[in-house]
């Protein structure tokens, strides 16, 4: 049986997620992430690797392609970008939750 707190956390998480989406904050942070990944060349590298990979494996499905390339792509996200985005998310959460 799930602990009482877990249920409350699930509810809190769902609420925050909805608020984040509806206020546009999620999209703003996502746009920042997309911009930073584009600037450091991550997006072009990932696109090139998946495209050339798909060319070599005829008939591969989107999901199979993602499963193949996702690990390397996730590993190549620069630490600085990860930290910056985490900070943005934390700042938003701090603004939404009473101390």
């Amino acid at each position, binding site marked *: 049986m799930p602990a009482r707190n877990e249920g409350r956390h699930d509810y809190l998480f*769902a609420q925050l*997620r*909805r608020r984040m*989406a*509806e*206020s*546009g*904050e*999620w*999209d*703003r942070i996502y*746009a*920042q992430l997309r*911009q930073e990944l*584009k*600037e450091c*060349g991550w*997006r*072009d*590298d990932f*696109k*090139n*690797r998946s*495209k*050339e990979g798909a060319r070599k494996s005829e008939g591969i*499905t*989107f*999901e199979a392609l993602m499963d193949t390339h996702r690990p390397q792509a996730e590993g190549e996200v620069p630490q600085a970008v990860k930290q910056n985005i985490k900070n943005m998310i934390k700042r938003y959460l701090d603004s939404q939750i009473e101390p």
Partner: protein
Amino acid sequence: MASEFETDLTSCPHLAVIFSDENTKTILLDTYRKVATWRVQRSQIAANSAKRRKISFPACRTCSTTMLKPFVCIRCSYLACWHDEHIKDHLDESGHVLCLDVSSGNVYCRDCGDFVYDSNAHRTNIAAFVAAEERSTFFQEARTGSREPFRTWTAAEKEVVALEAASPVPCQARRGLLNLGQTCFMNVILQSFLANPLLRNYFLSDKHNHKLCKAADCTCCELDIVFSEVYSRNPGPYGPASFLATTWRSTELSGYSQQDAHEFFISTLNQIHSTSRGSTAFQCICIIHSTFAGMLQSQVKCERCGNVTTATDPMLDISLELKDKGGSAVGTEMTLLSCLRRYTQPEKLGPNQYSCDKCGKASHEASKRLSILKLPPVLSFQFKRFEHKSGDKSAAHKIEAPVRFPATINMAPFTTLFMKSKERQSDEHGSTDAASFSHLGPETNYEYDLFCVVCHEGQMDNGHYTCFARSHDEWYRYDDDKVTHTSLGECLNSQAYMCFYVKRRLEYKPNTTPSYKIAREAEAIKEKEREREKEAARMREVEDALLATV
């Protein structure tokens, strides 16, 4: 019309069936429209953090979580999430087959087990997205008469008849260019023209037919000849000898020695402009200016009294410095974006370089700032790799350092409009937002896609030019007559000298006949009138002669 070419490509028979039935097709079109509208509204809310507007996000019908990446069933509009496979569960349970990814407009087919491509669906998605963007663009509504929404071309009666008699050719072609003796500098620029969608459309639609043009030494005709040769379906390399000869006759760039590709580029643009019908010295609408011309704004601010003066200059391309003013090499990696940031950052003017009109003193504190006032459809960048030591052209030094450039670039931060907004925002709120500002229009209006990269290897006087160019989504490397299929990665890893980008969205004006055409038609009517009068006068003479004999 019998055609050896497939115009409708589909990888999924289920999706194809929907487009073949008018009822299901209409429903699908409507779904695309709704999805596009929601997507555009969503980006507007994100862009405006100051205004407290909200948009409702759909919740997954299966698990009730707010979906950031919603999927919708094409048959019954059931909304469910992809991440936990709830949309797939719905498709399995209901027997429905197709669903749409709201964020991208891509279609997933349960039967095919994959995202599928259908050219009809692809076109419908883009059309719906463009229409939704246009409806939300501030400039689109504000100045009526200056912008028109995009409309797909439909053939008029005359055109339908002409099309039935015509034999279709593919709209992409590749041919190597023979090196006629150190002419690789010309070959790469010609390849950049061939890969340029706007120039290609102009010449393939016969807008300057070299067989009808009567001008001598017409560079525009020469380019038309090059296009005809490349699209002639002859696969072997072509030697652009007459283009070269015309260039010799038209400019000081002559002889067989190696020229600078960028110099040749600018010189050729000017030649094509001057040999285009209807070109003017000011606010020209010839194909060169319609394609390449933008406007730069230079703003000078007197720090003492705050007086601001602005000057605008037309531009055909942007040349970017690779060295700091101090002459020191740049420590961190150089990118196109960092060069552009440097290009548009405020620059302190030295003493005596500027005297302020308002406060009347030769100001020691003035700063100048460049920004792009008007973005052209094709943006060309040159990296200033060749340094000439004051006047001595033979003692040139090449900066070999690679510059990283992206496959797509958003030019919004470098535009005058954006910079002004940012200044105003920071004045009002004391902080600026990383995201775009909604009154600047949707992001895609500022986005550009790379289509050609000119590379130079070796030293200035005995180097070699090659280029990469894109045909739809495939990249090719052009080394004079050798054309090889390559990848985006190979292109981005090369040492670029020039980069060409094409705007993702074009702006449309209401169709007006160019003034030279109106003048030509008026002249033709007058000519007909004169002929008629001459004929009438002749008839009268004949009648008089006949009557005299009676």
